[in-house]
């Protein structure tokens, strides 16, 4: 995934159950990564969660994307898994390079 991915379809992953996160990704007109976070622990962990989401999106070389995360008390690895799944779905990738995830 060395090329920059700017063409993606709207997609989502996850659930609204406890310990999970529901992540939606949408194409965005503007360059960069826009993150909208909804979390009951946003006051304490909001910055850390947003940084994790941003790092995950950038490591997959995706740009011009809006990522909405509804966090239900998810661990870091759960949020990462949900963001990656939503992005792979948005990009139509069924066989990712696991060494980069």
């Amino acid at each position, binding site marked *: 995934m060395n090329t920059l991915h700017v063409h993606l379809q709207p997609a989502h*992953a*996850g*659930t609204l*159950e*406890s*310990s*999970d996160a529901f992540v939606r990704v949408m194409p965005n007109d503007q360059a960069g990564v826009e993150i909208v976070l909804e979390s009951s622990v946003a006051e304490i962990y909001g910055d850390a969660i947003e940084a994790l989401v941003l790092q995950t999106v950038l490591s997959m070389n995706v740009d011009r994307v809006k990522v909405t995360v509804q966090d239900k008390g*998810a*661990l870091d*690895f*759960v949020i*990462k*898994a*949900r963001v*990656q*799944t939503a992005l*792979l*779905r948005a990009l139509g990738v*069924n*066989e990712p390079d*696991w*060494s980069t*995830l």
Partner: protein
Amino acid sequence: MKQKLRRSMLFVPGSNTGMVCNAFIYQPDTVMFDLEDSVALSEKDSARMMVFHALQHFTYQNIETAVRVNPLSSPFGLQDLEAVIRAGADIIRLPKTDTMDDVLEMEQEIAHIENRIGREKKTLLLAAIESALGVVNAVDIARCSKRMMGIALGAEDFVRDLRTQRTKEGTELSAARNQILLAARAAKIGAFDSVFSDVKDKEGFVHEAQYVKGLGFDGKSLINPNQIPWLHKVFEPSKKEVDWAIEVCEAAKDAKEKGFGVVSLDGKMVDAPVVLRAEWILDLARASGVLGEEQ
């Protein structure tokens, strides 16, 4: 060789995030993440990704992990393998193993992935036998690969194949259980019984667990964490067994120190398999907490 205890193998659906995050808390001997039957077709990718990350999380570094992957004949099987071998799964559980070729094909793919990613630790295999054909071929399945650590009965699919249904008595499973146990022992690998689906029926569960333990099975697959303490209690050795095992092990140690080739206890010769059984009972006793770690 010291045998790892595998009394309890807890199934954890890869699509159930809460269970994926918390299964280690219940301390089963093995956590068995499932990417197959418990995961809807539309969530195969998300479950695979979740298990990929869970396997690498620190909470699963000190507990044995297995993953039931989708069959290689499905569009998901190979991707499952790629993800979970890279993530460090200890064991791959093959679903619906009918023949030796099913195992060999899986082994070949695993070896290929391990070589490609440079994984030194060999991934082990656990074959689930879930059909009449699989039971008939159990000996070949159990013996065909050095990676095989055990074979397990998958009773739900098996009874469907036999055109019957499961009963509390379990008579419909007796032929399969005996065949699987004999095949496993002939191959010197583990034998694991099927799940008990009625999670509220403690009495029925304990009865079945006592029965399969009596047959010689090493453990059971479980679908609910509540069943773990029930099962471990069934496998807990009695004080009489522990006392006997301590005596045998002390006699064996004494014989070794004195350079005797033969172990004797109360004037009777003790065979090597008896010493191994005594060591296994002490392992069970330690795991059950009835014996301290140092004893």
